[in-house]
């Protein structure tokens, strides 16, 4: 699994651990950004369940290093990403929330 940031930098290059389309996808997760702490890879699991024309998506991000600093840096990201995914699937348009601003505000309050 590779991910490229909007500015063209490679953000991820991670091994897929399990793939069972269209039900289950598990990959290892280690961000490659320069300023991010060097920790062992965590793990992301997507489970997709269909029922009566609707789909339930469950995302679990676990196996962080004990006392992980990365966890604190990324924990607020998933709600924004998953909200945008839902909007994209239902309306054809993703969201562009300014979560960087939100995170800066929250960090300033802390």
């Amino acid at each position, binding site marked *: 699994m590779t991910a490229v940031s909007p500015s063209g930098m490679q953000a991820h290059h991670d091994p897929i651990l399990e793939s069972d389309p269209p039900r289950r996808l598990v990959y290892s997760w280690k961000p490659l950004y320069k300023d991010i702490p060097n920790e062992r890879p965590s793990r992301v699991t997507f489970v997709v369940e269909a029922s009566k024309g609707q789909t339930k998506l469950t995302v679990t991000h676990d196996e962080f290093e004990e006392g992980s600093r990365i966890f604190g840096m990324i924990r607020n990201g998933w*709600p924004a990403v998953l*909200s945008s995914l*839902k909007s994209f699937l*239902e*309306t054809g348009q993703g*969201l*562009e*929330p300014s979560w960087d*601003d939100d995170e800066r505000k929250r960090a300033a309050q802390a």
Partner: protein
Amino acid sequence: MIDISKFRPKTVYVTYIASTPEKVWRALTDPVFTRQYFFGFAVDVEPKIGGAFWLLAPDGHVHVRGQIVDWDPPRRFISTWVVEGMQGYSELPECLVGYEIEQSGEAVRLTMIESHSWDVPEAILKGGQTGWPKILSSLKSVLETGNPVAMKMEGPPPGMTEAVQKALAEKPWLK
């Protein structure tokens, strides 16, 4: 008025919605609007701090009764919840359900916070954790597409009824 400083957040959900704070506020507080996404239930309020809060079942019965403890349109709305529509549940200590609405870029960030004043067991929290993702998903769909996601309310998840009975017998909040 209750002392909200005794309550701790136990379940928190964040969702981003392509909408405005005013529309999200209306979606949370208008009885006709709420029926569309809240399993057919209607939220009704006396719109002021100290005012009454009701969650009415589709047949009109009071499912939840509460009191508004924070009312700051279109930013923050907190009320107490006492579940009257399920046997025994009304004897549990009241909990708080709060919503925070913030502009985030061109979207709105909606945070739902369920708080409790006692060491509530996971099996009881599971009840809300089964319902809230469906309610909030459907709320987002109604605001963005005009159509709710038709989902049925499930009964209590496994172990919840037993956990409620145990709590009512032992009343750990009195200790």
